[in-house]
């Protein structure tokens, strides 16, 4: 038990010490909770870990502009926004994202609308890749479809975290058998702008 605790501590410590990673989150279908998780990660990194964080919303239509768009800041050559200490870039241009990922000394969290030929470079260049979806009977087809459509990318990429927002043990086992790796349950975090200490351990898992 003691050995396990020490190992566990070491694991957390290592995760806490990681520097300037790029995290990319994509959903298998709309409303999977991608933005919610990305906000949790970005806010945690800035407000708890004290890191410089850039949040990139790579979408055709921004959901965040109304919320974060009050205060403009310069990030390299482009204009972004600052909200609660996190810098936000709202764009649909993959080149901007690639530039930021290459040049900015900051943790980067990419909230990606869709994984396709254009955006796959961003996904592949990230350190942590997270795919979110539901295994509810009426939704699970999107997950399998997503895996099928992006087979090449997924086969080429190691370390993808599959997050499940809704599951039963049976469905989870079938999914695990299909993808060959263990999926993770989506953490329940009420408000990404008012994180609680009990949320920290859940969020650290994704860093």
């Amino acid at each position, binding site marked *: 038990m003691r050995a396990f605790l020490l190992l566990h*501590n070491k694991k957390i410590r290592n995760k806490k010490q990681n520097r300037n990673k790029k995290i990319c989150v994509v959903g298998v279908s709309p409303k999977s909770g991608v933005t919610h998780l990305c906000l949790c990660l970005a806010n945690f990194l800035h407000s*708890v*870990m004290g890191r410089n964080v850039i949040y990139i919303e790579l979408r055709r239509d921004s959901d965040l502009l109304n919320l974060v768009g009050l205060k403009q800041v310069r990030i390299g050559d482009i204009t972004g926004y600052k909200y609660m200490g996190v810098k936000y870039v709202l764009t649909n241009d993959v080149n901007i994202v690639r530039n930021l990922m290459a040049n900015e000394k900051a943790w980067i969290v990419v909230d990606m609308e869709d994984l396709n030929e254009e955006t796959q470079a961003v996904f592949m260049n990230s350190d942590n890749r997270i795919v979110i979806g539901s295994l509810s009977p009426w939704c699970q087809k999107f997950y399998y479809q997503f895996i099928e459509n992006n087979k090449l990318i997924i086969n080429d990429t190691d370390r993808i975290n599959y997050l499940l927002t809704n599951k039963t043990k049976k469905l989870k086992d079938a999914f695990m058998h299909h993808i060959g790796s263990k999926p993770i349950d989506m953490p329940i975090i009420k408000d990404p702008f*008012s994180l609680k*200490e009990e949320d920290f351990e859940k969020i650290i898992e994704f860093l």
Partner: protein
Amino acid sequence: MIPKGIEDKYEVIRILQESAATAVLLVRYKPIGALRVLKAIHKANPNAYSILYESNLLQGIKSSQIPTIFDVEDTEEMYYLVEEYVEGISLREYLLETKLSIEKLLYIAIELCKIIETLHTAGSEPVLYRDMKPEHVFMEGDVVKLIDFGISIKKSEVKEAKPLGTKGWAAPEQLKGDYLDERCDVYGVGKVIEFMVENSYAKDDFRIKRIAAVATEPDIDKRVSSIVELKEMLEKLQGERVNNKIGQKRLDKRIAVMGDCHAVGTTKIAISLCCYFNKRKTACYYKDIEKDTVRKLWINLKNARLHKGVLYHEHFRGIMEYGAAVEKHNPPEGLYVIDCGCNKEIPIGTDIIIYVIGGASWQLNMDDLPEWIKDDGVYVVVNFANRFSCVQMAKKIGKKVFKYPLAIDLDISKDEENVFSAIFKNESISIVTQQKDKK
């Protein structure tokens, strides 16, 4: 110039101040024989309406510490205003005769704050006094009064106000004619506190000096934000002194650990001090103002636990400074050890300072020590030094210094405990024995 046409009502006793177009007279109000002050101004004077303005301004402000206005009238040539005669002597005169005790100083300062608070909150909008100086503060026995509202204005009229005020006492923005708000009076009260400190037994009290310094900060944004805040700071200090005198033990003290320069072990000493108190079952919390020490400890320490914004690890308790996106917690009550790094600005509300000097020859800079180092409640600790250099340093500073032992572990060693016990030997009445009493 004594006004004509007032003889029926007033008998002139003495001329207090006189010029070609104005006069301030001590008069007796004939019907009841009471002494009053009569201020008169010639109608041809461009400032003739100032008397009417002053009476209008003070209308509706009810305070026994502000002179009551009885009458505003005019004769053929003059406007005149009759107000309560404030007996007693000005603060400047008072201080020529008396050396203030710290308690008395705090009392006068708090009373001044209360008067200004009345002005700032009375009526439909705040009145800015703008002319705080020892000559305008009157001591009627133990009652503090404020006189002369000649240049006071309503806040809504600051844009049109002339840049009037007494040089050396008025706030810089007031003399420059910049935008004014209530903080100009905070500055004025701060200046009077500063003046009182020079003529009191508080000369060696860094806490009062610090309050005066933040109240008289030339940069308006860094100044104490309101007279109520200033009053609360003074009351806190007053409360502590009273409680200490009657023997009540208090735990909400703040100990600032301040380094003379970088790398003298300030953080280590602050952490050990925190552990020292917690080990003695006195809740003590470490807080840093310059770095993110607690966050680093959370990252690097095994078995460190966060709970309600506090990091717990063995005897250590550290306040974790979260950003805006984390749920807010009220800071816990208890002793606070503030790690100031090498920032020499004393945090507000500090009760005790531990000043850390590096004993290595390249760290010693005896010419650049803060002036408050000899004050009561300031303890000098020398780190990385031998006994001989400690003795030398004590001679140079002119007070006892404490040699800090070599310490590596995060938790506190026996030698470190001995140093803190020696330091808090005198303070122990109010801090360390608290827990024993509880038991």
